[in-house]
């Protein structure tokens, strides 16, 4: 076998093998148009090689001319497919140049079949036999076709296009790709074009072998495509490692993680999920919550998932589940999942067990209520004189009225009208006494915090009523000013009474060393920016240098004080989302009093107002 036959056969088979591989890839992934174009180019290169062999083995000028004419078909295919391969694979090259090349080359192909024997020779007049790779091959001789310039111009445009595209890729930073695809294409296209020009203008007498050069391009492209495949394989390994890592994280996390489809069927659960419900994941996948939870709980879970899907945003809910060791509370974050096309396909939930935290919170709340109760009881014992008076007063009135009635009825004639009035008064006084007892009992009650909309001025009035006798007994003048339209606040009636009572009793104590004329207690209610503020001012001894200390537990200035009052007040106010603080009294805080001298303390209690329309 001759060298020529061997080498050209190898080119053909190599090109066809590569083409077959990439056609297969394209069949698997129809969007891989670059692979299809590459196959086309490889097949065309194989055809080129075939035509070249035909030309080299031509025995008559006619045979040579025909072979050359048909060679232009694969040449067209190679050029066009390379142009689009560059556009697709490298995402570079100017579109207008690409289309110009296609049009020019197609025009060239038309000329090839319409003008002269072929594009290159108007007529092949004879064959010359030249030695090539140790044997004699045919090389055409004849009249060159001037239209050949069009073809060669298209080749030059092709070189420019590839050079431009390679520069773009180079600038983009893909230097290796620019060198392998751009550089090699440029080199082989340039070399092939030069050889064609030299041979066809019969400057050198050589057989025409563009397939040798285009084979170089195919090899370079093939290398590039293989590199891509290798990179894909690496990526898939990386992805697998990443997936494994994610799985480990999911399984290691102490929260329950799960993904459900739009119908609520589980798509994914983590290990914690399996262990909480004691069901292996293969039995859970594809099931809804109703499979492993009681209906009402499962319904609640479904509702929150639907909410996340409806809003398309993250939803936080507290959920409960029944587990072998009792009911658990979970804080769940649920968010919808979207596929790359932006279509929602499910909901992911991450549920953290907050049972212990909830219990601790409940315990703290219970302790706070308990402390508040103790402090109330202590305060009431301080107030017992006042309360006894509050109770005594209606009893005294009832007795006197009753005895007056006895006398009126004993008269002749009895004064029945007055007796009726007396009975009405007795009833109302009795109710008043009952009210005192009810208030007392509610203050002594050990109750849970219950929030409801309250009118602060009503509370102030009630508290002043409770402390009335103490205030009179201490010769304290009380000023109460309330702004108009003070909005309601959300609060626990008893606890707010307790806070105010505490502040008032503190104020009394603070002023006990003052002469009676300098004992002024001022309560002012104001509101601003959706907050209601109650300010309790006294003209007493003022604050210690480090004012915040008074809110610390066991800090007391009283001989008999526990030092818990203000610290409990502050925790009560904090539970109302409010603030309680103290500052030195300004003269402006007591507007109506004759004493403008400074000294004394103002306690501010600020509570958020109830939203109107949302009682």
């Amino acid at each position, binding site marked *: 076998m001759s060298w020529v036959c061997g080498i050209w056969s190898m080119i053909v088979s190599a090109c066809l093998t590569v083409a077959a591989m990439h056609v297969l890839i394209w069949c698997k992934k129809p969007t891989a148009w670059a692979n299809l174009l590459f196959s086309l180019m490889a097949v065309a290169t194989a055809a080129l090689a075939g035509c070249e062999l035909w030309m080299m083995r031509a025995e008559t000028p006619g045979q040579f001319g025909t072979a050359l004419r048909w060679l232009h078909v694969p040449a067209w295919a190679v050029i066009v497919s390379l142009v689009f391969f560059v556009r697709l694979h490298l995402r570079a090259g100017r579109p207008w140049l690409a289309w110009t090349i296609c049009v020019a080359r197609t025009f060239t192909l038309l000329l090839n079949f319409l003008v002269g024997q072929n594009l290159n020779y108007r007529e092949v007049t004879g064959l010359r036999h030249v030695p090539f790779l140790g044997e004699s091959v045919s090389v055409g001789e004849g009249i060159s076709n001037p239209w050949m310039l069009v073809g060669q111009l298209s080749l030059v445009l092709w070189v420019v296009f590839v050079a431009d595209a390679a520069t773009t890729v180079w600038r983009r930073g893909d230097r290796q790709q620019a060198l392998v695809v751009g550089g090699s294409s440029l080199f082989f296209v340039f070399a092939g074009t030069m050889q064609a020009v030299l041979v066809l203008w019969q400057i050198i007498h050589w057989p025409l072998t563009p397939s040798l050069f285009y084979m170089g391009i195919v090899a370079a492209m093939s290398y590039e495509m293989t590199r891509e495949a290798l990179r894909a394989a690496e990526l898939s390994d990386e992805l697998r490692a990443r997936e494994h890592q994610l799985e480990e994280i999911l399984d290691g996390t102490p929260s329950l993680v799960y993904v459900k489809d739009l119908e609520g069927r589980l798509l994914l659960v983590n290990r914690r999920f399996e262990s909480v419900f004691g069901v292996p994941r293969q039995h859970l996948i594809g099931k809804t919550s109703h499979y492993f939870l009681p209906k009402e709980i499962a319904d609640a879970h479904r509702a929150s998932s639907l909410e996340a899907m409806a809003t398309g945003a993250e939803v936080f809910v507290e959920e409960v589940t029944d587990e072998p060791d009792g009911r658990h509370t979970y804080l769940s974050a649920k968010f919808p999942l979207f596929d790359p096309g932006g279509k929602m396909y499910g909901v992911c939930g991450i549920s953290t067990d907050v049972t212990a935290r909830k219990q601790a919170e409940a315990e703290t709340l219970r302790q706070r209520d308990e402390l508040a109760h103790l402090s109330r009881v202590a305060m009431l014992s301080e107030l017992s004189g006042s309360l006894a008076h509050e109770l005594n*007063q209606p009893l*005294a*009135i009832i007795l*006197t*009225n009753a005895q*007056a009635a006895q006398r009126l009825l004993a008269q002749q004639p009895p004064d029945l009208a007055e007796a009726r009035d*007396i009975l009405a008064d007795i009833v109302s*006084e009795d109710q008043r006494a009952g009210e005192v007892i009810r208030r007392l009992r509610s203050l002594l009650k050990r109750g849970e915090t219950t929030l409801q909309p309250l009118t602060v001025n009503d509370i102030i009035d009630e508290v002043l009523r409770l402390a009335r006798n103490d205030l009179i007994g201490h010769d304290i003048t009380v000023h109460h000013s309330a702004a108009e339209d003070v909005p309601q606040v959300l609060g626990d009636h008893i606890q707010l009474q307790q806070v105010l009572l505490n502040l008032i009793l503190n104020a009394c104590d603070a002023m006990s060393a003052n002469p009676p004329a300098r004992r002024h207690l001022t309560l002012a209610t104001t509101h601003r920016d959706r907050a209601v503020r109650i300010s309790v001012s006294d003209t007493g001894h003022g604050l210690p240098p480090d004012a915040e200390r008074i809110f610390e537990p066991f800090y007391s200035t009283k001989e008999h004080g526990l030092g818990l009052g203000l610290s409990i007040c502050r925790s009560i106010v904090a539970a109302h989302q409010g603030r309680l603080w103290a500052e030195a009294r300004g003269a402006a805080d007591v507007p109506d009093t004759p004493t403008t001298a400074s000294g004394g303390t103002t306690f501010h209690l600020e509570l958020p107002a109830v939203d109107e329309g949302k009682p």
Partner: protein
Amino acid sequence: MNATHGTVFLLDDEPGMLKALTRLLTAEGFAVRGFTSANTFLASYRAAGLSCLVLDVAMPELNGLELQQRLTTAGALLPIVFLTGHGDIPMSVQAIKAGAVDFLTKPVNAADLLRAVRAALQRAAEQRDVVAEMAVFRQRYSSLTPRERQVMHHVVAGQLNKQIAADLGTGEHTIKVHRARVMEKMGAESLADLVRAAERLGVGKSVIGNR
């Protein structure tokens, strides 16, 4: 004179209590004038007829004991019955020392209250009698000549005419005449009457003291 039918001033800052007390006392036939604060009472109080004051100790602004003080300082002759929700012993002692008729604790029994009110009005009547007597004595005393007053002072000090004459450096007969005129002018029928008048007027003690 009927001591139980006078005017009772009532002072209690609790309107319900004031009303009840008014009914009780009115039913017993007293004229009642009620007030809820010490200041309004002071502003409208005028001494007239037989009257007493029933007063609540614990009141804002001016409390019961302070009011008592004021009235005493002003020389008002108004016997006071105190009422209190929770009186303590020092408070009641202070009130009684300052001249209160009684110190009662609420709830007060009608009988106790009425007894106290009657006692207060009785005292008011007595005070009125004393004041009236005083006025008479004072008027009679002012009609004495200086010499007659000297003689009277010595007489009520228990001196005999002879001693008086010696002290004043005059004759026993002259003293006798002065003495008869003093007795006549002072409206005294006996020496005891004269001594009582002198006591009321607070005169004559100095003579004995000087001895």
